[in-house]
């Protein structure tokens, strides 16, 4: 028995001490208004010290106010400068909101033409590599988005969601090398596949004798079921034809400026 007590001496002591403090606390809870001997002793002992400290504090404070008042003036000046800065910052914020409002209006006007419900989202991050072209937006499953949802901006197609989390999503841009979208030339209805090349798009499988001119608008064909038909993808910037071969080499500039992308719309509903 003694051996057991010696072995668990520390543990037993701890338990006893904890229990003792708990009992003491619960006892004192019942005696709220009564001052115990211990409390009275502490108060009595501390009173002169507290009084002295209070006196010293008053003296220091008075000296500070009377003789070093210039510091107060300087402080006031600093406060006013700070207030001025804050007001200036607020003014800039108002201007920023006004610009954002304008961009959102354009975005909404674009989405209204689609006749499909869409959800606005903010771009909160970009790809951590130099070769992949993805962005992160601040909406996810909780907002009703799902993998594959098309993402657009006021100028045209941005990409589609490839990874989704409760409150954020990763969007594969149309300029990514792994992105391929069924497209057609708006003027001639020539079909092709728009593949990403980092900064621009290459139109694959455009037949050699098809009529494609520089400046033609490239739009989604609606094939594949991801993107609605007729959304702008870009504008043709070069057309090359080899002496032989079935297809011509066509490049297009994306309609969206991805380096200045801040707000996007995610198309969530089906065709109406």
């Amino acid at each position, binding site marked *: 028995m003694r051996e057991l007590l010696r072995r668990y001496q520390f543990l037993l002591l701890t338990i006893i001490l904890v229990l003792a403090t708990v009992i003491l606390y619960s006892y004192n809870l019942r005696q709220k208004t009564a001052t115990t001997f211990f409390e009275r002793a502490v108060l009595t002992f501390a009173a002169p010290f507290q009084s002295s400290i209070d006196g010293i504090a008053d003296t220091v404070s008075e000296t500070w106010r009377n003789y070093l008042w210039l510091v107060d003036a300087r402080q006031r000046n600093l406060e006013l400068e700070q207030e001025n800065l804050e007001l200036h910052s607020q003014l800039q914020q108002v201007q920023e909101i006004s610009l954002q409002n304008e961009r959102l209006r354009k975005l909404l006007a674009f989405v209204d033409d689609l006749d499909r419900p869409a959800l606005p989202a903010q771009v*909160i*991050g*970009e*790809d*951590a*590599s*130099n*070769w*992949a*072209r*993805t962005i*992160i937006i601040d909406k996810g499953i909780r907002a009703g988005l799902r993998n594959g949802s098309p993402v657009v901006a006021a100028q045209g197609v941005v990409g589609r969601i*490839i*990874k989704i989390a409760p409150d954020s999503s*990763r969007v*594969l841009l149309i300029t*990514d*090398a*792994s992105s391929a979208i069924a497209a057609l030339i708006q003027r001639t209805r020539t079909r092709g596949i728009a*593949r*990403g*090349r*980092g900064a621009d798009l*290459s139109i694959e499988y455009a037949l050699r004798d098809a009529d494609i001119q520089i400046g033609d608008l490239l739009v989604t064909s609606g094939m594949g079921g991801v993107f609605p038909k007729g959304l702008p993808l870009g504008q043709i910037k070069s057309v090359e034809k080899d002496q032989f071969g079935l297809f011509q080499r066509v490049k297009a500039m994306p309609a969206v400026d991805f*380096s200045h992308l801040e707000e996007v719309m995610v198309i969530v509903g089906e065709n109406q």
Partner: protein
Amino acid sequence: MKGFFLFMLTGIFFALLQSSVLPLFLSPNWRPNLILILILYLGLSENLPRALITGLLLGALQDSFCGPSLGLYVSVYLVIVLVTRVLSENLNIESPSLLLLLIAAGTLLQNLLVGFYLTVLADSAPVLHILLPALPKQLLINIIFSAIFLVLLLRFQRLFGYRSGLAGLIYQSKHHGS
């Protein structure tokens, strides 16, 4: 264990920096791959099992912050850690200029592996149109950032201690080669 968490926390910090802060100032081709620098450093300063495990996790971390699929950087960094280990046994890695050369070689190897994996396995051949023109800029910016890190490291090495698993510039880590 402390070293492992330090590397992971630095990796997370770098990943956030690369995806949220650097894009505000730098175009994609001019963004350094800070995690690659960390991986090379890891390969030089930690023992093999720890370097491998941390390297794999950092790869998974980078995969989560870029590209469409998980596993690319896990594999790429595994190779880079192994190559770095083999090289470090035979090189005087205490020389800062040699470290910068290693960073350049690491950048080339990483681009080569990414290009290979994406072209052969992911059927994303157009990625070469992105990777190749960006390579000189990537080399330059990675070397510049590594040089900055080296200067900072040499300056603060006394604070961290020479043998706390950092650097391998004045003295190698105690874990190195064990």
